[in-house]
């Protein structure tokens, strides 16, 4: 790892904007927020994965992964960040390093040529070059290659230095933010600025979530200048330094970016979420208030209240239709962070009972909210082993599991409805309309008549009451015509070697556990 990368990592770990971090001692802080991984019990993506998640939604950029096959080959085009324009971001570009490239040290040269080829073929506004474990280990200097390529070809080549083995996805997010700060943001000036320009950081427009809240901005005349990075164009990111306010969505991961935008360009930020009704309203209020502070017309506040009132009335009316269908259902929430509580109140209002919520990755503040909303902390838990969760669901301790993809099959295999509420989901649940979609998804899941059918016993689990109608099997297999018998566990009996004794009549065909049909 180069010294530059080391100090970068040190720097992002030393995040004053992060509450958890501020409470740590100097030594703890140096260690970073990443816990050391346990071999054989680790889960989750690497730093490269995190960087890619954060940056790939920039749709018109060519994302070039400098790596042997594993990093891009197994992972390209696997996320649902939606684009309203270019599809280039979905194309998987990689240097696909071979053994020869690695042993002979051809890596940098190959990367330079790959950049050239991608620019020639697609002429993108920029090329993002991702470093990964192997090139980092053998010392390929992607910064130097990017610099040379930018000079030579005139297309900005942005190095994203987050090789997988330096840490977790979360660290990768942060390093991606740094890459944008160092190489992109501030490089293009917008033609005109308005007092209603905002940055949205940390929303990747998965399944179009950003579009669920965009109509609200449109109504208020707020312009998303810098989107980092949902449905973003390169130019948008490059102009993010001219926004008036930054909203940091749902996540602490990119807080370094928000804070540095504040430091360098004086753009104040706030943390908010579009997940849940009250959160959405709160986020709009805060955003408008901050814009006014920054020089927007004061009537924005009134317009904002008006929009909130209209939208809330409308959404509750829509939700009420579902009340009889979902009331009384017991929900187990297994997400984490602020999602531990942000939808709880809405679910409760609709008569659902939230029997538990996991508080992984949640701050003390988040935990406080859970206690407040749910009355006590009895329903809070950290992690649940898949085995325990399976048992709990199987014993019908809940009516529906709402979680991320990882526990999908724990629920399904326990014949329990499941609603996807994490990043990889296929449906968008943001803003007011997203809440309706989520409740509709819960309704669709729990009220499917399939569940009761599936849980019925199999025919052979109830004792047979009818008597046998037909005689027992004798003679040969009805399918193959081969005579059965001679007391072997093999189903069919070969013609050789000739059996000395006459085949005994067979009373039942022996079949193995893996049998599918025939005798």
């Amino acid at each position, binding site marked *: 790892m180069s010294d530059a990368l080391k100090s970068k990592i040190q720097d992002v770990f030393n995040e004053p904007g992060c509450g958890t971090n501020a409470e740590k001692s100097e030594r703890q802080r140096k260690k970073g927020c990443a816990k050391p991984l346990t071999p054989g019990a680790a889960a989750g*993506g690497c730093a490269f994965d995190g960087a890619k998640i954060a940056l790939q939604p920039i749709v018109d950029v060519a994302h070039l992964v400098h790596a042997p*096959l594993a990093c891009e080959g197994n992972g390209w085009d696997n996320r649902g960040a939606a684009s309203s324009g270019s599809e280039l971001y979905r194309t998987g570009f990689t240097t696909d390093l071979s053994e020869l490239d690695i042993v002979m040290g051809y890596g940098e040269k190959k990367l330079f040529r790959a950049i050239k080829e991608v620019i020639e073929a697609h002429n993108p506004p920029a090329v993002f070059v991702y470093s990964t474990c192997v090139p980092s280990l053998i010392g390929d200097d992607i910064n130097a290659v990017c610099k040379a390529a930018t000079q030579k070809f005139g297309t900005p080549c942005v190095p994203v230095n987050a090789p997988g083995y330096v840490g977790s996805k979360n660290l990768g997010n942060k390093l991606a933010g740094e890459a944008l700060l160092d190489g992109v943001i501030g490089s293009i000036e917008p033609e005109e600025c308005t007092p209603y320009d905002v940055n949205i950081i940390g929303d990747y427009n998965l399944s179009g979530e950003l579009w669920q809240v965009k109509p609200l901005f449109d109504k208020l005349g707020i312009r998303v200048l810098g989107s980092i990075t949902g449905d973003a164009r390169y130019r948008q990111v490059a102009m993010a330094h001219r926004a008036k306010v930054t909203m940091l969505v749902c996540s602490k991961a990119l807080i370094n970016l928000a804070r540095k935008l504040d430091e360098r360009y004086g753009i104040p930020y706030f943390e908010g979420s579009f997940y849940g009704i009250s959160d959405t309203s709160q986020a709009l209020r805060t955003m408008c208030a901050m814009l006014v502070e920054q020089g927007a017309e004061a009537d924005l506040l009134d317009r904002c209240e008006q929009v909130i009132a209209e939208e809330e009335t409308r959404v509750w009316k829509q939700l009420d239709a579902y009340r009889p269908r979902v009331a009384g259902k017991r929900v187990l929430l297994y997400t984490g962070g602020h999602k531990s509580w942000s939808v709880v109140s809405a679910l409760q209002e609709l008569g659902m009972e939230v029997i538990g919520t996991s508080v992984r990755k949640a701050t003390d503040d988040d935990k406080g909210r859970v206690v407040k909303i749910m009355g006590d902390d009895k329903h809070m838990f950290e992690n649940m082993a898949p*085995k325990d969760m399976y048992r709990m669901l199987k014993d019908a301790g809940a009516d529906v599991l709402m979680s991320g993809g990882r526990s999908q099959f724990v629920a399904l295999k326990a014949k329990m409805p499941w609603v996807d509420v994490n990043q990889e989901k296929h449906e968008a649940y943001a803003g007011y309309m997203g809440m309706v979609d989520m409740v509709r998804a819960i309704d669709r899941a729990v009220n499917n008549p399939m569940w009761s059918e599936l849980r019925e016993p199999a025919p052979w689990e109830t004792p047979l009451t009818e008597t046998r109608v037909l005689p027992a099997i004798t003679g040969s297999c009805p399918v*193959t015509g081969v005579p059965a018998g001679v007391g072997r566990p093999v189903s069919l009996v070969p013609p050789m070697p000739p059996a000395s004794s006459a085949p005994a009549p067979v009373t039942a065909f022996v079949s193995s556990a*893996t049998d599918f049909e025939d005798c």
Partner: protein
Amino acid sequence: MAKLVHPKRALSTNPLKSSAPLGAALAYLGIERSVPLFHGSQGCTAFAMVHLVRHFKEAVPLQTTAMNEVSTILGGADQIEEAIENLRKKSNPAFIGIASTALTETRGEDVPGELKEIVSRRTDFADTQIVYASTPDFDGGLQDGWAKAVEAIIDAMVPPSTERDPELRQVTLLCGSHLTPAEIEELVRMVRAFGLEPLVLPDISTSLDGHVSDDWSGTSQGGTPVARIPDVARSAFTLAIGEQMRKAAKLIEDRAMVPYRVFQSVTGLKPVDAFVRTLMGLSGMQDPPPSIKRDRSRLIDAALDAHFHTGGLKVAIGADPDLLFSLSNALTSMGAEIVTAVTTTQHSPVIERVAADEVILGDLGDFERSAKENGAQILLTHSHGRHAEHRLHVPLVRVGFPVFDRIGAQDACRVGYRGSRAFLYEIANTVQSIHHRARPEEFGAAPIAEEFEHVPHVASC
């Protein structure tokens, strides 16, 4: 026949191949109560796991030695030991299959030696079988990783033997990576129809077939029982499906003198005939079971119906060598023309046998370009081919790994008489699904003059 061409370029666009460690993991998942373990950084495992889960729609146990920069440089023996220990505590697997990755291979470690040392020192690990395969990402693809894992399993677990039980009607079915669970099932059914008892290795047909069991386990949900693997040495014969299984079959022969035959394809009339012929010989049955004969006659009927659609059909196909060969061979035998063939790894002699002028060692970028240039009428590759499908407006038949935008990928069966029949229908129906209405202009004729057209009266009110 076919020449293998390596495009001269530094940039790979839209990878076709999946990585070798992933192939190894998949093979390990065909062992009962197993957990595959990647020796590398955690990210590779996460990507591979997502990849597998998206294809099979199943929870897939897959773990990592969680190497970081420091442990990579110092060597990862401790990480391996710790990983095994933790895995045993957590899910008590009967089998742990280790696959190396690009990272640990770049550093270069003597893992087999270190593993030997660990296993001899840690006697408490005795009830878990541990196998290691070297599968660097930068060499070959999924199929190579799979083959290496199977070889490693045999190498570690099949004892030398000279004894043969003449009463035992057991044959080993060595399955290549290109077989789906349903395809393994179909082959097993055929073998059994001849009264032979197949011992399948590795057997993903019982672990990744998609079923609901009564309890949750952190290991594979089925597969070849660990205790049965040494019995491979006692089989009368080894049926190796796919050229990639040749080395493994050879290894068994060397160890236990079990003769073998490699079936480069079991799709299409002739290849399945050869398979059946072998089963006839093994079982001494001149007259195969009626079900087999019936299935053959139905395949012939399907071929009669399908050849109108497959004759002259221009096909673009992108897949690992064994799948590429078996499917393209089945299609060319039905009169189709392979205008584009792209594959993932050079390590296979079947590439030469593909009925195309050239086979490109490349990616889906090459696939799309060549399919366009050569006017392909149908595309066969995995789900990532959907982008080419949209851009070229040519229908895609999803084959190989991964298939993530359709469910039931494990149930696709294109082997045996039955599977070949289904395959022909699949191709013919895809061709028919392209709705094309002929227009006079296409033939150079002038369209009907407008004056002849009936103009509906505008309703007067």
